[in-house]
């Protein structure tokens, strides 16, 4: 009996998980389908760009600077052993542009803007604002969800670029200003080491994909949240956990495709 019950419970969980994935895919398709409004009335998207993108600027800029400073310190320590301190600029920039910029900016974006989106939409649902909109014959997918989605997708690569830029600045401050690495070789090595197509464009593609994933997860969790305090808090947690794992998983897949056989 216990085995049967366990099997039944396992089956129930699998069916639920598959059903939820189907529901999430349908939700994603509906976002794309109802995206017209986000571009026709672009001020709706700009408003969301402000709350998810501009409001995330401080955490992204500060975190980027610190990460760059740590890279400067750690990189210098390692490169010094091989007498290659002059390659510090290249190391800092490549680490940031290829990996740390897109990944860390996306993780921070998921915790700062993603969780806020989930909580906002979850609470809109709990306080019947979404139902009210539907009763006014206004499609909440077009009016509420899609503009937030596109705001997230647009702001993610920009935030990632700013994160990397501040990181380079942080690396410069530590490497050149504090430790005394030669300024000319810092910048020239960076210029020689970083390839626009191979590094910067690929980094941007990564952050675009992360933007799609994080925003879609945050919006889905908010829209699917049970309309209770506990439901919204659980959905917010799931957004951060699922987004973080998805970012790291996608990063591995994308890196494998982009930088294979080097």
């Amino acid at each position, binding site marked *: 009996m216990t085995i049967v019950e366990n099997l039944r419970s396992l089956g129930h969980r699998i069916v639920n998980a598959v059903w939820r994935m189907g529901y999430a895919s349908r939700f994603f398709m509906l976002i794309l389908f109802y995206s017209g409004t986000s571009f026709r009335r672009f001020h709706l998207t700009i408003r969301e760009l402000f709350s998810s993108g501009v409001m995330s600027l401080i955490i992204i800029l500060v975190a980027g600077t610190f990460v760059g400073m740590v890279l400067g310190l750690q990189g210098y320590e390692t490169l010094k052993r091989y007498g290659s301190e002059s390659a510090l600029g290249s190391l800092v920039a490549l680490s940031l542009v290829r990996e740390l910029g897109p990944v860390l900016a996306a993780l921070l974006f998921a915790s700062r803007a993603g969780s806020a989106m989930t909580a906002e939409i979850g*609470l809109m649902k709990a306080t*019947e*604002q979404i*139902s009210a909109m539907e009763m006014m*014959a206004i*499609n909440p997918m077009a009016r509420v969800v899609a503009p937030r989605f596109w705001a997230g997708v647009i702001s993610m690569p920009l935030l990632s670029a700013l994160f990397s830029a501040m990181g380079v600045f942080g690396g410069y401050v530590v490497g050149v200003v504090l430790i005394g690495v030669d300024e000319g070789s810092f910048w020239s090595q960076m210029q020689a080491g970083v390839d626009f197509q191979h590094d910067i464009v690929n980094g941007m593609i990564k952050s675009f994909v992360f933007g799609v994933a994080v925003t879609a997860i945050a919006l889905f969790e908010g829209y699917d949240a049970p309309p209770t305090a506990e439901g919204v808090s659980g959905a917010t947690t799931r957004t951060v956990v699922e987004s973080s794992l998805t970012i790291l998983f996608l990063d591995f897949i994308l890196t494998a495709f982009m930088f294979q056989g080097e």
Partner: protein
Amino acid sequence: MSSQALVEIRDVNFAYDSRPILKGVNLTFPKGKVIAVMGGSGCGKTTLLQLIGGALKPSSGYVKVDGQVIHELDHKGLYHMRRRMGMLFQFGALFTDMSVYDNVAFQMREHTDLPEEIIRDLVLMKLHAVGLRGTHHLMPAELSGGMARRVALARTVALDPMLVMYDEPFAGLDPISLTVVGNLIRRLNDALGATSVVVTHDVQESLKIVDYIYFIADGVVVAEGTPAEISTSDKPFVHQFVHGEMDGPVPFHYPSSNYGQDLNLRPGR
């Protein structure tokens, strides 16, 4: 009466999964009237509003609004119909990220191409009608419960709907706000020439403002009549409900097993 009916609900059954909520109810809401639908919590009153608004589909039977069967309408048709309806939610459901002004202007901006100057005049007129013109610059969080309900009422009637639905409009209001909201429901209905459906369990306030009352219990209509008929009714359910008696057809105790057994008392003790 049927020819003048704005809303006709015929033999409607509805169940959530296998739990029946409505069991073959028939209601008629004539044009221009204020109708109350009453019953205890969880008796299916709000479900009825959702069926009229097309948010739910009946398992059998139909809901007809202005001659059209709601559940047979496609997405576009349903949205077209909803533009002619208004619904006041239990706690107002104001958009918390918008000011009072923007809340009332919301539908006008979404559904019409009116210039902003005209929208401004209309918004202020709607807010004036509910006595809150001076609050147009405030955010919903700065309003009291009664004020939020009145702003929501102004938003509900923003596009002069033919049918206005009220879901528990009196819940959680102080006596003054309660009378104000009650009077507004009646006055706005008459001024707009609309039809109003008020889902509530506030008997005394409803008796003052409505034209006709339906009582729902256990998924069926158990009584109906004008306020005068209802206040003098000797039907056990209506009597218990109107006078707020503790016991009656609606029992005080939730069904449970034998009390003595639950307390582990031996028979005979």
